[in-house]
């Protein structure tokens, strides 16, 4: 059914259609609307049987999900930013135990300085946790990916983060096509756990494992993700059969057949990038886009295949490997290693910094001319940075950097553009 709704509400409705049995809720912007909506559904009796638990922290949220999942219940939670970091120990534990928990990450920057706006630093910080990570481009895709995520998680007995850009998607009102309960039931069978805590058949889960088997258990997590590389396209194809639309998969390309320059990105920024590419195409530029939906597992082969026809690529990412450069760019370079392709990285949109079309036009034209440093910081205010660096050089007690920069800019409230 078509409806106009907020991204968070759409995701909450999709989660409800997946018949979750235990939902753990802890408020953190910008995911809060999702668990609020689910809480109301449970309390009103519209989502049953389901236990909705208001926990005392994100660490507890993931821990309750671990207990519920190990006891055979379909478990769900949502978080972002500091919350994801606060639960990090339990995030690794859930995947180490092989529990198919689904979690929405409403991507948000990590402080300090504290910042509630969107970038991808949070979920990318959990890159090696053993969780799969799928990135939604639109609210429709966010909704659809959650339905696929339960299926994928439970088939592999591994947890998944469905990542959607905080505020840009979570708080945006858009038209979505909400599936029916019957469609979701046809696609997603009831949870049949591989391991379960049951007095009828006692097992020990989470036992101490020494050097004799630890590597094998860790390797299995990797093997599961390699299986996911096969499964994700299959599930997307099946999804299309049931729901009648393309959603998910490993990567999605746009205008790359004859493209000499390919822009690579994840999440909602792909929409803006495609608009810029359309405009540049009209002006005769041979430019295309490759969207990465599955960040973990990383589809090395598909990325390589998509890029081999081009001459150069630019990875535009909302994340920064401090002291190194790009995070996604490193993986892309690995995918095309030995190909001789020229690659550039642009770090953009950190902490919600807008990524306007005008900046992208300039950036993409520079990329075409290969007139870029290896790492570009899009729209960075160099004056502000240099002023602070100078201050630190001349004054020992130079003060808190963030406050200095804000003072220099004379910005009291957030003002963009």
């Amino acid at each position, binding site marked *: 059914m078509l409806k106009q709704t907020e991204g968070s509400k759409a995701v909450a409705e999709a989660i409800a259609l997946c018949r979750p*049995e*235990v939902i*753990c809720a802890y408020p953190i912007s910008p995911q809060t609307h999702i668990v609020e909506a689910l809480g109301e559904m449970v309390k009103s009796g519209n989502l049953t*049987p*389901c*236990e909705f*638990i*208001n*926990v*005392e*922290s994100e*660490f*507890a949220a993931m*821990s*309750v*999900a*671990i*207990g*519920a*999942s*190990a*006891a*055979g*219940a379909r*478990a769900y939670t949502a978080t972002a930013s500091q919350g994801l970091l606060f639960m990090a*120990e*339990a995030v690794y*534990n859930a995947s180490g*135990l092989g529990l198919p928990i689904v979690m929405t990450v409403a991507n948000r920057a990590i402080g300090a300085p504290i910042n509630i706006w969107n970038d991808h630093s949070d979920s990318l910080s959990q890159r090696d946790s053993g969780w799969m990570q799928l990135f939604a481009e639109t609210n429709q895709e966010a909704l659809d990916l959650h339905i696929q995520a339960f299926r994928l998680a439970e088939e592999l007995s591994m947890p998944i983060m469905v990542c959607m850009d905080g505020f840009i998607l979570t708080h945006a009102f858009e038209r979505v096509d909400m599936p029916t309960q019957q469609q979701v039931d046809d696609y997603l069978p009831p949870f049949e756990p591989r391991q379960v*805590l*049951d*007095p009828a*058949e*006692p*097992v*020990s*889960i*989470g*036992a*101490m*494992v*020494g050097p004799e*088997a630890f590597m094998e258990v860790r390797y299995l997590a990797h093997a599961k993700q390699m299986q996911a590389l096969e499964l994700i396209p299959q599930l997307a194809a099946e999804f299309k059969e049931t729901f009648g639309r393309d959603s998910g998969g490993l990567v999605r390309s746009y205008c790359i057949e004859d493209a000499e320059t390919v822009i690579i990105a994840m999440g909602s920024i792909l929409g803006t990038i495609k608009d810029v590419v359309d405009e540049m195409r009209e002006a005769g530029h041979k430019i295309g886009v490759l969207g990465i939906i599955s960040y973990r597992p990383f589809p090395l082969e598909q990325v390589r295949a998509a890029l081999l026809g081009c001459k150069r690529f630019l990875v535009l990412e909302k994340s920064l490997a401090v002291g190194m450069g790009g995070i996604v760019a490193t993986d892309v370079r690995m995918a095309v290693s030995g190909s001789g392709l020229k690659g550039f990285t642009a770090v953009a949109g950190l902490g919600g910094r807008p990524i306007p079309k005008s900046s992208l036009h300039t950036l993409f034209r520079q990329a075409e001319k290969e007139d870029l440093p290896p790492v570009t910081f899009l729209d960075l205010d160099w004056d502000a940075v240099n002023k602070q660096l100078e201050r630190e050089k001349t004054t020992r007690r130079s003060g808190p950097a963030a406050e200095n920069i804000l003072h220099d800019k004379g910005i009291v409230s957030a003002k963009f553009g």
Partner: protein
Amino acid sequence: MGFQAVKFYQTGTFTVGNRLLAPDERSLQSVETRSNSINSGHRACQGCGEALGARYAIDAAMAESNNQLIAANATGCLEVFSTPYPESSWQVPWIHSLFGNAAAVATGIAAAMKVKGRPEVRVVAQGGDGGTTDIGFGCLSGMFERNDDVLYICYDNEGYMNTGVQRSSATPPAARTATTMPVGPEPGNVFGQGKNVPEIAMAHGIPYVATATVADLRDLEYKVRKAMKMHGARYIHIFVPCPLGWGTASHDTIRMARMAKESGTFPVFEAEYGEVTGVLKIRHKIPVEEYMKPQRRFAHLFGKNAHPETVARIQAIADRNIRKYGLLEDEGN
């Protein structure tokens, strides 16, 4: 010295003479119906109080739940000595997740059982004092305030024994640990710190809170069974001496637990909805010195460079416990 009536069933060591009790009140070590939830062959130290406490607690919980029990375990000695895979000692469905989240994992299990329509399956969470009073305290308090249907059992040996005897918020004042060494003008753990988790649990107003020791296994079993008859959040704090961490003889574990109770150092009581409903009286009051002297963790307080004033401060704490909980029969007479 006050008069103390000698009860006919007491023996020289003040244990309860089992054979003199009515059959239904007897505690049986070995009986066919005992679940032996923690089977033999685990790797606990000789004389481990925690292994003994857990064996009695979990078997009692199994008996009361008609063997329909799931256990969540915090990281710690109990987890490590019971599960070097594939040699799990656990005969119950058992999960270990992390050091600080046993209470929350148990909440998740209880929620799963509720949603699956299996009210007969009961849930126990357990951890040491570090996993309970320190790192797991947030999750524990959350489980309490939500009144989740979980019995949490803390095995308190007053320190981080698994990592090599460091101080926890349950370590008593003056005790030597690897992080409170007996050096400087005030050797050992400092006074005026620490956390009384049974009282904090009571402050949550949960249905049941109790303390117990491995010296009174019948009392321990009674409290676990009573807790299992109830629903909502319940907390039992079991005092379990640690020969390795305390520097006591392996065969003295029960004696140390008894002396902790008899000196007033560890008050044994139970409480419902935040109010104390019963205490286990001291039968033969002893000075704290008698309890402390056999423990090498207090050795720096005695002998050549004795600290009698420190012992007196610890005695004052025990006396306060005795007054506060009314631990003496003739208190007030």
